[in-house]
């Protein structure tokens, strides 16, 4: 029995199967095979040019009319076979040897040309989607207002236009067995630590999933701690933010069809900075960063502190405030924990409803919610005035955090801390905060510490983390980027 228990407790050696080499069969592209693959696809177009003895296959809704006219209709209408053969030697007509590549090309908006047992692909795709517009989730007061869109080409062009350097390199990858989503890594060759690029490339290539449609979906498939509540990659819809990350020696990644890009390695404190900070005087930027950290603390513990004080530690309330508080609490039939959880849930319901509804109706929800959770709830004896102030302050403070994902994570954690405060008072709050810190200390991003620059300590980086130092003081790139090219600016002479 003891032996059996010991066996269970001991680590079992894991048998590693030798890698099986898979050889893929190469099928030469042919018109029949291609048409066979796309049976029952009503949007597939097959056009023949009998004089030139040439067939073209493409998806009607993926190609552009102008592109079709330029590369297919005009060159091959009314030409002989020998003339067509001559035109197909032009560089835009790429010969393909594999049927799989041919099908993939058609799915990507290319036209497949079948001519004398040889297949060619020509890119006549026409991107559709909205043009560059302002990001609605990451607005700034000063600074550029353009945001990424769902079109990968647009997004990359925005980056190229901002960083005009031949050192900006890109790597194209594909994710999703079915969706075949294109993912592009962007980095500065002479600044980035190439091990990050390699690691990111490996992780993306190892993903085995049917489809990926969004950057925030992709990052969850490659992060170091998939069970953590905290976002581990900095995602943004702002080109200026992503360009500054690239220049700082981080790797950026774009996903086709997603209006956001992510950068890595990322630290926890990055989520508290906004591009705005750099566009204002450094004193103002610093004040804003400190305000956000205060906002973070308020979001985490303010309501919990109310619950703790009103449940266990009345002695902490100054006697000048005590009368008002007791009077306000006297009409409420619920214990502070239930009262706080109810109000926090109501706020979350309002927030979620406001986010899902069109902006005009969303405003109405705000007004209705303001009345319901404000005056009416107090008059009905559902809650105390002071709790409303605490809950409202926590909610407002949570929106100070620029990253929506981080703000949402913190708001969820707050419920746990409120619960602990309700059963164990200040001790519960401290246990809650301690558990969050312990959890954060175990998180890594691309092998680097999530708590950089506190742990491992890098006091120089504090200037651009807890404050926004004046530009003359921000001479080095962040230590987390592990770049060999550390210096980013020199003092003015």
């Amino acid at each position: 029995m003891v032996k059996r228990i010991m066996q269970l407790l001991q680590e079992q050696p894991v048998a590693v199967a030798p890698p099986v080499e898979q050889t893929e069969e190469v099928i030469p592209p042919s018109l029949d095979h291609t048409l066979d693959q796309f049976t029952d696809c009503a949007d597939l177009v097959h056009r023949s040019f009998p004089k030139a003895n040439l067939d073209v296959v493409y998806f009607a809704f993926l190609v552009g009319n102008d592109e079709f006219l330029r590369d297919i209709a005009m060159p091959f209408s009314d030409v002989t076979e020998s003339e067509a053969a001559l035109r197909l030697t032009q560089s835009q007509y790429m010969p393909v040897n594999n049927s799989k590549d041919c099908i993939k090309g058609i799915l990507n908006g290319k036209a497949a040309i079948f001519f004398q047992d040889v297949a060619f692909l020509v890119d006549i795709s026409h991107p559709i989607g909205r043009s560059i517009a302002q990001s609605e989730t990451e607005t700034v007061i000063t600074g550029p207002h353009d945001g990424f869109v769902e079109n990968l080409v647009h997004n990359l062009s925005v980056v190229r236009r901002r960083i005009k350097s031949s050192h900006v390199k890109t790597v194209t990858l594909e994710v999703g067995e079915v969706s075949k989503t294109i993912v592009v890594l962007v980095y500065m060759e002479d600044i980035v630590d190439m091990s990050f690029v390699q690691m990111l490339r490996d992780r993306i290539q190892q993903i085995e999933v049917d489809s990926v449609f969004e950057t925030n979906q992709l990052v969850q498939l490659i992060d170091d701690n998939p069970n953590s509540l905290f976002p581990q990659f900095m995602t943004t819809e702002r080109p200026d933010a992503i360009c500054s990350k690239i220049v700082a020696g981080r790797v950026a990644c774009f996903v086709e069809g997603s209006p956001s890009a992510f950068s890595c390695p990322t630290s926890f404190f990055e989520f508290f900075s906004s591009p705005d900070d750099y566009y204002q005087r450094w004193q103002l930027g610093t004040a804003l960063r400190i305000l956000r950290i205060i906002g973070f603390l308020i979001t985490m513990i303010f309501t919990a502190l109310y619950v703790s004080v009103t449940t266990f530690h009345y002695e902490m309330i100054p006697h000048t405030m005590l009368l008002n508080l007791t009077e306000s609490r006297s009409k409420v039939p619920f214990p502070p924990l239930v009262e706080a959880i109810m109000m926090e849930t109501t706020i979350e319901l309002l927030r979620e409803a406001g986010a899902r509804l069109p902006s005009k109706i969303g405003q109405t929800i705000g007004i209705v919610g303001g009345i319901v959770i404000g005056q009416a709830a107090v008059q009905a004896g559902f809650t105390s005035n002071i709790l409303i102030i605490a809950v409202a302050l926590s909610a407002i403070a949570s929106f100070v955090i620029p990253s929506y994902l981080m703000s949402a994570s913190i708001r969820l954690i707050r419920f746990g801390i409120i619960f602990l405060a309700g059963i164990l008072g200040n001790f519960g709050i401290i246990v809650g905060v301690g558990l969050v810190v312990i959890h954060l200390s175990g998180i890594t991003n691309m092998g680097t510490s999530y708590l950089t620059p506190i742990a491992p300590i890098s006091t120089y980086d504090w200037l651009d983390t807890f404050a926004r130092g004046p530009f003359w003081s921000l001479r080095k790139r962040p230590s987390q980027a592990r770049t060999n090219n550390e210096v980013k600016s020199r003092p003015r002479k």
Partner: protein
Amino acid sequence: MREKLNWFHVAILTYMIQLDVTLFSLPRIIAEKLGTNGWIGVLLLSLVGILNIFLYSLVHRMGKGASFFDIVEASLPKFMIYPLYLALALFYIYVGSILGKSFIIIFQIMAFPTTNSMFLFLLYCYMMYCMLIKDIYSISKAVTVFFFVTFWLGGLTFYYFSEWEIVRLTPFLFKGATEEISLNSWTDIYTIFVGCELCLYLFPYASRDGKWFKGVYIGHIFITLVYVYVIIVSSGFFSFHQLKAMSYPIIDSLAFIELPFINRVENLVFAFFMFSNVTSSVIYGFASLSAMKRIFPRMRKNVLEFVIAGITFGFGFTAQILRETDKHVSDAMFVETILAFSIPLLLIVLLLIQRLRLQKGSERA
């Protein structure tokens, strides 16, 4: 890239391990054992602590960074080693447990007189478990954050400056102790520096060049300064006789703080010190884990950590009231002080024997 503990994190670890529940009664203990101006005695004892650290740095240098276990295993037979490891592991768990329980009981008396202290201790052990299952680098990261979370609390002492008077320190040196000052008084006080000896278990995780030992010295000097500062602030705030009469002068002095929006911050501030207490328990647990891993090298992930947290909780039952925890802490710290000096001396002897053997071997060859 494999991380290494650098001197800064080692300094913070050393400081946080030594900062535990004894801080709150320190001014009273000093007044009882050494009498007036006992802070000078703390400075003197700190030099002994430095000597202790020097012994460990000597072990590190002589053993070229080899771990405690490697040194012992190279000299002693296994049938002797395993019982030794087991005893050491259990003792460390006991120290960590009793430090935690002592903190919990004080907190229970202050804030939750009707709650079972074991319930609070269960949460404490859970926190300890959550830290233990992480590697030492992650532990050091958490401890660094805990340091920053607690360090600012020292700023609260500015509140007492208007009431602080140098005259209360008196011009007398070591007068008015409860009993005559003896070796026993000094050893009792030295226990406040117990904890830095755990640097022995960090050898494999730090650089071999030993530069990180700078961190152990800095951490120790820093905690000495904090102790001296706390004693001076308390001695100038309370009278000497008041200090001797109060169980926890620091907690009583915190109760004095009245801010416009918050009063009686002592139980909030005291709760913050749980971080440093948990750190002490975790590092003792880590030392125990290192020993246990030698006995059970193939154990499944997190099993040993769970066992350690479980035994820590179990040891909590041995002391249910404050008088008992005080007695246990005092006894445990006394044994730990003996171990803190005897272990490096033993290791130095073993390393010398190993060196002699090597020399003889090379001469024969």
